[in-house]
């Protein structure tokens, strides 16, 4: 791992197209701005780990298509925003 120390306002460049800016910092956190081409995915690390876990569980549970207790009257839970 490359370790750099940057102050507020300072930047880091990765490759040719990715620029990371330390926008602001306080005791507990840093606000980080990331400029990257659209084809590069950027997300918080722990989100990726949670998603991987969900998908692995979805894969293990997929055979339950036959075992679900379908006696209740249900409908799709639409999300309205």
């Amino acid at each position: 791992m490359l370790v750099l120390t940057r102050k507020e306002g300072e930047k880091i460049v990765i490759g040719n197209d990715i620029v990371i800016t330390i926008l602001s910092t306080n005791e507990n956190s840093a606000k980080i701005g990331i400029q990257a081409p659209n084809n590069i995915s950027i997300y918080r690390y722990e989100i990726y780990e949670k998603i991987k876990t969900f998908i692995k569980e979805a894969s293990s549970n997929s055979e339950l298509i036959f075992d679900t207790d379908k006696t209740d009257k249900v409908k799709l839970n639409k999300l309205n925003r």
Partner: protein
Amino acid sequence: MEKVKNKLGEIEYSDENVITFEEPIPGFEEFKKFIFVKLEREEELFQMIYFLISVDQPEIFFPILPIKLIVENYPNVEEYEPFGIVKLSSKISQITINLKSPVYINFTTNKAKQKILDEFDYPIEYQLFVEEK
């Protein structure tokens, strides 16, 4: 026609049913080709559930559901349809759908990409069914 066999049964498919992932599913990065199928089921409940079955390892398969059935104005990718991976359960109320990292499928090119929408507030696990009152 080709065939695969797994716990869903024996599934026949041809090239036009095969989706290739350009951006793979987290945790399943080596699996790029999946068969996209709908199983004929009597239960109304599962009418809209499709399956992605790995061509290389058919024992790996996921139920998916078109996200537009749950969220009308879901983030769009031109030419691609968003699907949510569904985690089944023996209890209907515990069946959830992933709205955070959709699988976008282009049915013209048969290409797919899995995207993590961290910039939106959609949950990783969302309850898929509610009681009909």
